[in-house]
């Protein structure tokens, strides 16, 4: 019997990530990792792309991982876990090691997933390896000092898309990676957020039991890059969900389904105004960017509702 998704029950299992890692106070990445690993009862093997999570959890001679873990490079976590998973299947099939129902998980930041690692991810998905790829998406390259990525939203200030006097932050919308992954027609794809922990855990369970490659895109607030107080991490994550900037949904065997519908769809401004990275957008000359972002959020939300048969 799988452990019930009740915090008290989950707390009876050993924590698979130890304290003593050096992620910033209030970082959402370890919350996501803890929730995902707690949702899985089976043994896991983790691969991690270069980025904040990797760097801060394994500073030699220390490791915060209580599960087998490998870091290879920045752009190749999907290929790395593909190698591990293939070795497992091969060795089991040849009778060289016993079968253990191991779940293989890759963690990559948005840089390692949307940008530099997209090819390796696409290849691994197409080949059908049995693994769960988790993008902990903090919407920029945080480890190297908050540079823009393909996941950075329109207007956001980053160190490579600074809010200058002529160009007010990032000039492009973020790409819809979840949809791109869904287009691979793999058995399970979902978007999630740690503030909706139960939804995230349920998706994790579906993902690791779907019998093929699975992908979770999990919004991961970074208080350093987003510029908010450390204790606002989950509130801001939930605001992204309630503004429909970050809808929670899943695509299971090609069927799109909304897993959470906000009671009241809040204006995206409610989310923006709480973060320093968008502060400049509230100057009169930049307000049009908020309108543009709102229009894009609405357009994508409507498209999603249609895909999910909600209208």
């Amino acid at each position, binding site marked *: 019997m799988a452990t019930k998704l009740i915090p008290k029950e989950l707390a009876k299992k050993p924590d698979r990530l130890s304290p003593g890692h050096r992620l910033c106070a209030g970082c959402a990445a370890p919350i996501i990792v803890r929730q995902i690993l707690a949702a899985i009862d089976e043994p896991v093997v983790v691969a991690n792309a270069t980025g904040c999570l990797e760097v801060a959890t394994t500073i030699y001679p220390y490791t915060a991982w209580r599960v087998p873990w490998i870091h290879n490079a920045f752009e190749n976590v999907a290929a790395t876990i593909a190698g591990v998973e293939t070795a497992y299947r091969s060795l089991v099939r040849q009778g060289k090691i016993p079968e253990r129902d*191991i779940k293989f998980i890759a963690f990559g930041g948005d840089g390692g997933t949307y940008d530099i690692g997209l090819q390796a991810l696409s*290849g691994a998905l*197409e080949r059908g390896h049995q693994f769960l790829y988790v993008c902990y998406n903090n919407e920029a390259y945080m480890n190297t000092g908050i540079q823009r990525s393909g996941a950075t939203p329109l207007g956001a200030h980053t160190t490579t898309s600074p809010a200058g006097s002529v160009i007010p932050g990032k000039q492009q919308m973020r790409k819809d990676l979840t949809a791109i992954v869904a287009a691979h027609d793999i058995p399970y794809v979902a978007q999630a957020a740690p503030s909706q922990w139960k939804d995230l855990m349920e998706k994790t369970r579906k993902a690791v039991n779907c019998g093929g490659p699975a992908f979770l895109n999990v919004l991961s607030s970074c208080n350093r890059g987003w510029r908010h107080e450390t204790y606002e991490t989950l509130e801001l994550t939930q605001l992204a969900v309630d503004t429909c900037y970050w809808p929670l949904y899943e695509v299971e065997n090609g069927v799109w389904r909304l897993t959470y519908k906000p009671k009241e769809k809040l204006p995206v401004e409610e989310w923006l105004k709480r973060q320093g990275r968008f502060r400049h957008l509230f100057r009169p000359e930049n307000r049009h960017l908020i309108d543009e972002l709102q229009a894009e959020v609405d357009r994508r939300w409507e498209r999603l509702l249609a895909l999910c048969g909600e209208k």
Partner: protein
Amino acid sequence: MSKYEALTGDQAVATAMRQINPDVVAAYPITPQTETVEFFAEYVANGEVTTDFICVESEHSAMSACVGASAAGARVMTATSANGLALMWEVVYIAASLRCPIVMSLVNRALSGPINIHCDHSDVMGMRDSGWIILFSENGQEAYDNIIQAVRIAEHPDVLLPVAVCQDGFITSHAMERVEVYDDADVKAFVGTYRPKWSILDVDNPKTYGPLDFYDYYYEHKRQQVEAMEHARRVILEVADEFNRKFRRNYGLFEAYRLDDADVAVVVTNSTAGTAKVVVDGLRAQGLKVGLLKPRVFRPFPAKELAQALRHLKAVAVMDRSIAFGSMNNAGPLFLELTAALAIHGVHIPVADYIFGLGGRDIKPSEVESVYRDMLRVAETGRVERLVTYLSVRE
């Protein structure tokens, strides 16, 4: 019972891979290595091996998957050439530093650009300081034999380093030759069972592979790699010894051909050594005391042994199939290392470098002969007139 088969170099490697039957192969096609991957895919498709073949979407992913599979305790092999190797580059270093005993067939081809599919050694020379053991092969037979030995060298507990086995693109990779193929069972017995030191699949004893390693320990881990390379010097010879006894073929750090009583010699790797042997025989028939030294092991570089083997000569020419651009006199990498080795080991003889065959430019016996004739002159005068010659380039 072994048997002789007509095989191309690529086929010979694929045959060795079939006999080794690795747990995982991850590879991507690139001329002139492609046939190896194709043949191997066929073995997989026909159930002749129990290998899982990951037909990746790039060489970067090929080497990345190899690292993952190796960390999982699998016996892992791959194959590539030139641009494929260049795309792997980052992970080539990582494979060595994570101490993954991966065996790679590297079919030497000129690096772009301009793009070119034919043989030279610019690809392998770029990886020379990456921490891989590097072996050269004159022909399909040697490529076959080296691949088999490479598995044992790589996986030796005192080594645990990846090994690249080189052969010349097209010249040997696509040339049909007689290759003695040993009995499947004998090869299987020779390579034995891989017992990994650790495995990331050992979920009851979780380990962390590839952590962030700062100035307080990175250096110590590099020092360990040096130690492994030093052990490899011994292990390569031990494995060769066992191989020679089992399969009656003689391998060492290098091959000396009519070198003992020679006055002058050429040092050259891979297929050109075959051409040079013919030239040596011709010149010997004319009473000229010429010989050949064909390095087999390039990493770890057998400096002392090479110096010892060349000590008695009056002049030596190195033939390099790549250029170390901007190095001393824009010489070739083999020349640079060999001259350093000679100097360090107190061998003060005239040495010259001949760059040749770039981008697959044909090297004729007459050109090799001209190198010998130059050296015979140098042996007389004791003076090298031109340190580096770009053989047969049009002015």
